[in-house]
């Protein structure tokens, strides 16, 4: 099953696999500039109520992403020991 970054729950970690084809090139570039590049580990720090943007940690920076962006990042869920 294809997981997206948006589907992560608070406390879960994942590895970024790539971007889907829907996300525009300039958005994709900017996301990679922020550190969201394939192979990077991202954790979901907080998942707010009512579908508000979620809070993610990548490297040592915290970002908040809306569904319109996070749902276009394909990820693999990481276990506790990974």
């Amino acid at each position, binding site marked *: 099953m294809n997981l997206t970054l948006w589907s992560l729950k608070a406390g879960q970690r994942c590895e970024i696999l790539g971007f889907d084809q829907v996300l525009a090139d300039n958005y994709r570039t900017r996301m990679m500039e922020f550190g969201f590049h394939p192979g990077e580990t991202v954790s979901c720090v907080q998942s*707010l109520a*009512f579908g508000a943007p979620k809070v993610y940690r990548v490297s040592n920076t915290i970002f908040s992403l809306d569904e319109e962006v996070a749902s276009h990042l394909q990820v693999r869920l990481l276990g506790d020991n990974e």
Partner: protein
Amino acid sequence: MSKVILIGSPNSGKSLLFNKLTGLHHKVANFPGITVDVGIGRMRAMTDVELVDFPGTYSLQAISAEERVAVDQFERALDDPEVAHVLCVIDATRLEKSLYFTLQVIRDCERHGKPVTVLANMIDVLDNHKLALDVAGLAAELETPVLPVSARSGKGLDAVVSQLRASAGGATRVPRSRLVDSPDVLLRGTAHQLARRFGPKGDILIRSQTRLDSFFLSSLTGGLAFFAIMYLLFQSIFTWSAPAMDAVEGALAAMADLVVPLFGSQLARDFTSDALFGGIGAFLVFVPQIFVLTFVIGLLEDSGYLARAALICHKPLRLFGLTGKSFIPMLSGVACAIPGIYAARAIDSPRKRLLTYMAIPLMPCSARLPVYTLLIAAFIPADTALGGLVGWQGLAMFCIYFFGMFCGLLVTGVVSRSSEDHYTDLPFVLELPPYRVPGLPPLLRNAWNRSKHFVTKAGKIIFAVTLVIWVLGYFPNYGTDLGASWLGTLGHIVEPVFAPLGLDWRYAVAILTSFLAREVFVGTLGTIFGIESADENMTPLVQQIQASDLSIGSGLALLVFFAIALQCVSTLAILSKESASRSLALKMFVAYLLLAYAAALAIFHIAGLFGG
């Protein structure tokens, strides 16, 4: 005079560094077309060097029109022979975020033959947490000097000056590293590796940030904190700035009392009192409000809370084409549109900023309050229902306030869905900066600069329009009868326009003068009805309006008209300056005027169906 460019990514502490190096003495310039601020200041330690502070950007690969302007300006600056050095600021606590941009800057500087020095800022934060950055290793790998600095404490700034002096003396060669031919995609990988090798190890900083976020972003505590902070913000605009606004008005009145009697002729006295002091007061009275709001918003921004507030509000506002960052400008607009328009600068998406500009003038600002109070007192009975729990007048006030907000969201919702994207829009990706204790001097300086900007830019327009309205209302009968003045004649001319709303020339004149500021409507009607100081004691005017043959439908039409129409010259002036587009201000003025008229006409006829 040689120039040194200061560049860095957002939240790298660049502005504070600029202020430390220049001693806060900077001016703000706008690029033509789009508002992008560039700070220019003379360095304290090297008075023959001008430091140019470029807007913070994440990358030299622009993805929006506004970023394009900033990047183009930077590229042009690299061709400028007066530019002697480039200082690139990075956040030492979050190396990876800054390094990609830094590599781009180093590469472009090498291509243009400009020496660059990397300033690893916030080194004091690393020291406090016993973390370290491998400065020597990073410098060797970048083939570029890297200096650890703290903009907050001033640590390492002497070394920056020494480096610039050495560079000016020709001691620094421009290295031609392997970066010079590297494409962006390669730089991304390099940045990632360098951050891992030389960056601070450990996540102490993130843990403390996460603890605070779990309070400020949780459904319960975060919601309560949000409402408490927004309440304080609202209080700051309405209540805290009120004494200063009263003081400005009082001081101007006292000065007028001193100066006016010095003139012999009645014309000179009237001109000095009403046109000159009235014109100055028309814009000076807003200064305390702008100062206080800018200060409080700066406090929220520098502390790191503003980004959290934007996150909380984003989802509901997105439904109307807006962003979470639109909330504070719109809330400010409930007090006054002018500070609200200034606050919209924090919105990085030009399209969403434009939509926010459209919503702000429809927020029920405090200038509408006297008009609403007068009309509601005149047309809505002071009765209560449900055992006194619900007063009809209070309910009417609530409804007309809500109506304004509803119209604002409706307009942005419709425009965002129906218009083509004239700008490349930015997705909602918001960096949540670490929580910090804000420094007072930069906040005060920023509030001062914003107030000065308002006085110098919008003041002239407001003053000029005030003079024109005064001349029209004073001549040809020297202020003895407003009805017989040129303005009164104009009122008679435009009477047919307002006649379908059941309004005669007197209301037409009051509406015309309200384009100065909405509350002037009350004073003008008072003058026409021959009542002294109607804006301070409305009761006689309310009785006069009730005694006239104005219908309830006309009263409701006036209420709706004032809720929508953008008849405030100060707002239009500042909108034109901030958006760098006169046509936007003009289009909004015309569109809201037509919308206000159509809505007023509709409400007049609906009321007529019910016998109003």
